[in-house]
């Protein structure tokens, strides 16, 4: 394994019957990188992400995540990654502390570790007065920030973020991204999907999927240069506008 690669993907393919959801995609993600994974609805983003998280077996191709093979070492992968999505993040009917303890417990961390880290997380988020409140009583932005902290609680090598900022207000969205930057600085590799095109600019590199293929992959400035665009929004529209799957169901 290449020490500097957090994720390597080579000709990874997933077919559902006749339908090729992900068609021989190849890319590498460097350790400590913020990697943006963009695509229209139905482009195959979710399917690709599931394979990398060890939730779905590829039809063909190879991929390693944190040095582990997605076919045979999914248990190792799961131990070394964090995952957070907009849809499922925290248990609404548990308190903040209970949520943290629960997730920390899953990864079998020592009590000492959990205790220290919990107070650290609480302090970072300024949640001292909210630790014993039910998650459902908190605003969405807070929930998302807690969910992110929980997803990197066990200090994974890579964290997968699936539309983490959907519906969050502009200020909290930026606070969320500062957290992402901090995590990246501490060496965690970030793999993130988003529908906010300004957030694509925050990534070190961006990969844009169209119809199961990777249409483009580069740093945001390079992409804008190549497609003669002033923003990532424009780049995305130029690339994805002619997607067949957006038209054909």
């Amino acid at each position, binding site marked *: 394994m290449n020490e500097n690669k957090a994720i390597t993907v080579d000709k990874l393919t997933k077919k559902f019957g006749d339908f090729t959801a992900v068609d021989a995609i190849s890319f590498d993600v460097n350790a400590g990188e913020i990697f943006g994974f963009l695509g*229209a609805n139905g482009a195959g983003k979710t399917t690709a992400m599931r394979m990398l998280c060890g939730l779905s077996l590829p039809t063909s191709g190879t991929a390693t995540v944190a040095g582990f093979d997605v076919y045979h070492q999914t248990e190792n992968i799961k131990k070394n990654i964090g995952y957070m999505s907009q849809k499922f993040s925290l248990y609404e009917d548990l308190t903040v502390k209970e949520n943290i303890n629960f997730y920390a417990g899953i990864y079998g961390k020592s009590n000492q570790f959990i205790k220290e880290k919990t107070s650290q997380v609480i302090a970072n988020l300024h949640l001292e007065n909210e630790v014993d409140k039910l998650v459902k009583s908190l605003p969405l932005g807070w929930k998302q920030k807690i969910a992110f902290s929980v997803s990197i609680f066990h200090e994974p090598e890579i964290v997968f973020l699936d539309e983490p900022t959907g519906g969050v207000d502009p200020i909290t969205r930026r606070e969320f991204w500062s957290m992402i930057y901090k995590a990246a600085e501490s060496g965690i590799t970030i793999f993130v999907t988003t*529908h906010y095109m*300004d957030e694509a600019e925050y990534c070190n590199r961006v990969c844009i999927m169209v119809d199961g293929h990777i249409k483009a992959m580069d740093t945001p400035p390079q992409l804008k240069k190549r497609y003669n665009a002033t923003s990532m929004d424009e780049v995305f529209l130029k690339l994805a506008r002619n997607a067949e799957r*957006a038209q054909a169901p």
Partner: protein
Amino acid sequence: MPSVSAKNIVKFYETKNDKIQALCGISFNVTKGELFGIIGPDGAGKTSLFRILTTLLLADKGAASVDGYDVVKDFKEIRKIVGYMPGRFSLYQDLTVEENLEFFATIFNTTIQQNYDVIKEIYIQLEPFKKRRAGKLSGGMKQKLALCCALIHKPSVLFLDEPTTGVDAVSRNEFWDMLKKLKQQGITILVSTPYMNEAALCDRVALMQLGKILSINSPAEIINQFKKDLFAVRSSKMLSLLNDLKNFNEVEDAYFFGAYHHVVMKHKNEEQDLKNYLSKYSNDNLEIKNIQPDIEDCFIELMKQSHEIELH
């Protein structure tokens, strides 16, 4: 007579331990044929407001009317003349495209043929798949079908609750193009969205946050009311640049904004001061330019103002 009018609407939700105020005195008017946007993050109260206006919820205080009909007293009349697309695309996944449309046509006592001109442009794209079950459509197509279903009875007011949330940028663009065309047919449209950049596409917008309206105006006027100097700054080390900016006394606010940081200055005409300050730090490829604010800049500014008012 305004097409939609809301006066001082207040709505509480009771939970076991406390009372959450979802709407704190919302007032606005929408004129006939207007494309009116309600822009705000989750929890702003957009859905509650839409539900009150579409007669699905009762407000705790205040009054509202749609086409002159009171939302409480005349709810039956309102239900005949409005089109409503809730947050989730509310289609029957196990019915085909055509069956969904036919069903919604009949419950509004009409037929697809009768109002075909209203939906024609949108439906043409769906027609090749009319025998397909709605559950098997892509997100963008579902969105189009849901819009057709909400339009099939030629409503005079259309309520679209976050039609573009979770939809990719391409479909979002297409959707707004469709709305523009609908507006030409004289339908009043109220649309809510969490995406700030969609505000520019509306005639007027209400910026909402935590149950309050921060501002109601045309997008141009909202931008006009942003009186401070705004700069876009970037360098090769964005994170340390942001810290440097935040440490500068003359900077009121600095935050990520796409490829740049946006910097709000405390006083006018301080571009040179900013340049001088930043040149002291090792910021390679430094670029500073004075820019027009975006709606999102205004929203951030208004959010902070409203927060300060609350603190005092």
